[in-house]
């Protein structure tokens, strides 16, 4: 197989030119932290490396808005924003992730409980379509309902609709104080339910497989009183003003089958039980309270596909889905990593409008899109 040509455009115009002047399959690369995610797809002729578009275009601190080029590292953007006491409230743990990659894969971290996911914070974007067309939607004000919001479609599209070149986000202030209540538990379900029914307002409820970390990020007195109330509610718990080591880490290693399970919020205990039974020996973590469970599994038995399909069937009963985020190539040939998808025919029609020749990351997304 010939190696793809890697190009590193320095501007939106150059991205457009690359696409106009080429014809075969194209993939976009940010930091490469999720390069193997999704279905295997068709090998690209051209890889567009976004490292040359890494500028923070405008940080309007008084407006709590930032516009950044898609190749900027999320961590670098946070550093710039931090100077003004602000941050882009997205905390996926993948190191070296770019802003564009975070948007294209819609990844999230523990604080999605309070701030939502990339779709909730993206307020404008610029994209280049497969034929080189440059288009934008949204804008740089938080409140804006003019026109269709293409940002929603491009968020989580895995590069299949076009190249995201610039994003504008709503920002939040960094909270002045933090408390983390750590409660050891194999089954966080009941405590999570009690917290969600209480007036407590944690920014994250992260379960790492052995303990639930209840995070409060607000002003000092509110962090302290809520931490104490959580200990009382739980009947136990250690209070710290620091996040535990490895907080938010995905529970998988390279080479594992990495799964993301979603579910209705109240089904947490049942879903954790299902994951443990179907994927014996797996490591688990949960964005508890948000309906997201991650599992990393180094399968020791041959019927990997049967186990994954078994889990998929079980979580469907909880209105959820199982997506195999990443897996060794031989596993990807055995299972549909995305699983059944609602609205797939509509998605195909959208794809054929935006990319009629099927050039953009072909085969990487749902239903072979």
């Amino acid at each position, binding site marked *: 197989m010939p190696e793809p040509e890697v190009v590193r455009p320095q501007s939106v115009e150059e991205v457009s030119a690359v696409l106009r002047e080429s014809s075969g399959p194209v993939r976009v690369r940010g930091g490469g932290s999720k390069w193997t995610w999704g279905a295997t797809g068709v090998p690209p002729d051209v890889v567009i490396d976004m490292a040359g578009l890494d500028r923070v275009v405008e940080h*309007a601190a*008084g407006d*709590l808005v930032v516009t950044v080029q898609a190749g900027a590292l999320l961590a670098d953007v946070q550093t710039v924003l931090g100077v003004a006491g602000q941050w882009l409230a997205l905390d996926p743990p993948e190191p070296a992730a770019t802003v564009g990659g975070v948007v294209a894969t*819609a990844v999230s971290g523990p604080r999605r409980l309070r701030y*939502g*996911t990339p779709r*909730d914070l993206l307020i404008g974007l610029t994209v280049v379509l497969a*034929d080189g*067309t440059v*288009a*934008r*939607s949204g*804008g*740089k*004000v*938080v*409140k*804006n*309902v*003019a*026109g*269709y*919001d293409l*940002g*929603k*479609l491009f968020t*989580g599209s895995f590069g299949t*609709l076009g190249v995201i*070149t*610039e994003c504008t986000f709503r920002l*939040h*202030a960094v909270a*002045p104080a933090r408390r983390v209540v750590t409660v050891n538990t194999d089954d966080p379900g009941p405590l999570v339910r009690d917290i*969600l*029914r209480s*007036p407590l307002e944690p920014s994250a409820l992260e379960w790492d497989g052995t303990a639930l970390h209840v995070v409060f990020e*607000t*002003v000092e*007195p*509110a962090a302290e*009183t809520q931490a104490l109330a959580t200990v009382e509610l739980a009947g136990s718990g250690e209070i710290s003003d620091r996040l535990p080591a490895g907080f938010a880490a995905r529970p998988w290693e390279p080479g594992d089958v990495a799964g993301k399970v*979603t579910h*209705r*919020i109240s089904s947490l205990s049942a879903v954790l039980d299902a994951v443990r039974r179907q994927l014996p020996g797996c490591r688990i973590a949960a964005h508890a309270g948000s*309906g997201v469970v991650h599992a990393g599994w180094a399968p020791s038995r041959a019927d990997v596909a049967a186990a994954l399909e078994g889990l998929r069937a079980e979580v469907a009963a909880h*209105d959820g889905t199982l997506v195999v985020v990443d897996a060794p190539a031989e596993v990807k040939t055995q299972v549909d990593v*995305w699983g059944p*998808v*609602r*609205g*797939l025919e*509509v*998605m195909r*029609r*959208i794809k*054929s*409008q*935006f990319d009629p020749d099927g050039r953009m990351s072909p085969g990487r*997304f*749902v239903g072979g899109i």
Partner: protein
Amino acid sequence: MTLEALADDLVARLGDDAVVTERAALRTYECDGLAAYRCIPGLVVLPRTTDEVAYVVKRCHDAGIPFVARGAGTGLSGGALPREDGVLVVLSRMSRIREVDVDDQRALVEPGAINLDVTRAASPDGFYYAPDPSSQQVCSIGGNVAENSGGAHCLKYGFTVNHVTGLEVVMPDGSVEQFGGRAPDPPGYDLVGAFVGSEGTLGIATEVTVRLLRRPETVQTLLAGFRTMDEAGRAVSDIIAAGVLPAAVEMMDALAIEAAEAAVDCGYPQGAGAVLIVELDGPVAEVETHLAAVDGFCRAAGAFEIRVAADDVQRVQIWRGRKSAFAAVGRISPDYIVQDGVVPRTSLAQVLHDIAALSAETGIRVANVFHAGDGNLHPLVLFDETKQETARAEEVSSRILDLCIEHGGSITGEHGVGADKKKHMGRMFSEVDLDVMQMVRCAFDPDNLCNPGKVFPTPRLCGERPGRRTAAHPLQEAGIAEIF
């Protein structure tokens, strides 16, 4: 098939109480909340189920007859403006709240359900539905989905799109699709996100899964009176700069205050040139800390009177003036236009000065009411039709949108484009931008039958590819944005 034949067919399937054909009865549907645009629909249908909606849409699709969905008819951009050659699908009979599950933080509701009724249904368990447009006592969830409605509290809690997780949609060809559901992050393109805010042009939502939030532990509402708008604006900037995120920050100017006093006797601080309403909610200790900070910023900026509501009765009293403001200007002006534009918050002071200058130049009074926290202006342009001021008022209203665009804002923050503002879309987006947006429409509604003639100034034929145009982008040309 003619509309007459379609009416007979629909009567046979849905019953004659579900089909309106008499002209006098049709006339009651001729406009939504924006009465400047009127059109008597060819036919009105009131379906009761998803199957009935799908049947109506399928018949329209097969016959090539355009159709428009309507909820409560409170929209302010003519988004539900009917077609005289088409069918108006009124969803008021599909108003049930089917399920409330607070442990899943979800409710399943029909599109005709009233916004406030969702909160009422969740209240016994201490939960509520966050988006709260001013019309929430009468507006429908389906209309909220179409318009991506906000409300005073969207500064902190976001818009309808942040609170809808699933949709059942009757597609423009009459098929029924499910997007999303109760769980988060459905795999594939975010069809829920694409549909919410599409102003009824991508299909008809027949069931909506919404998020429910836990009621905050406490709410505090502060009213501050200032001599000038500049002082009030400085207080807002300082509050935001300090990292405080209020649930709502609302501002009114002297003319808006005068109108509200005349209408509802709200008792705002006497002699105020501006009032600020700041609402904080959350855990008690957080709200107390932030309330003290807000009080300090208001005083430092020049507030001469500050009141904090001691209870819900006083809170309602504070909000009464603000919530009545649109209708209240009817007390001080025979006619008025409600404008809806957005500017970056930091441009507020400049834009308000520009609006004042515009008012002085034209002799058209403008009362200002706005969501100051997110820069969403609702200038009320006052005029007297009998004095031939209509054209001048419309000119002022339009020039206010120019100001919003010049400052990098938007032509609509929450009322939508609809029929009213499609002529302005080309000032905010290039033709290519609009063509690309319409690819989404072509994926959903290739025959352009679903609420046609809204949102986009020029409908796009779904076969064509967007041309690579050489003209500069309008924002680039105006020196507002660099090449993207």
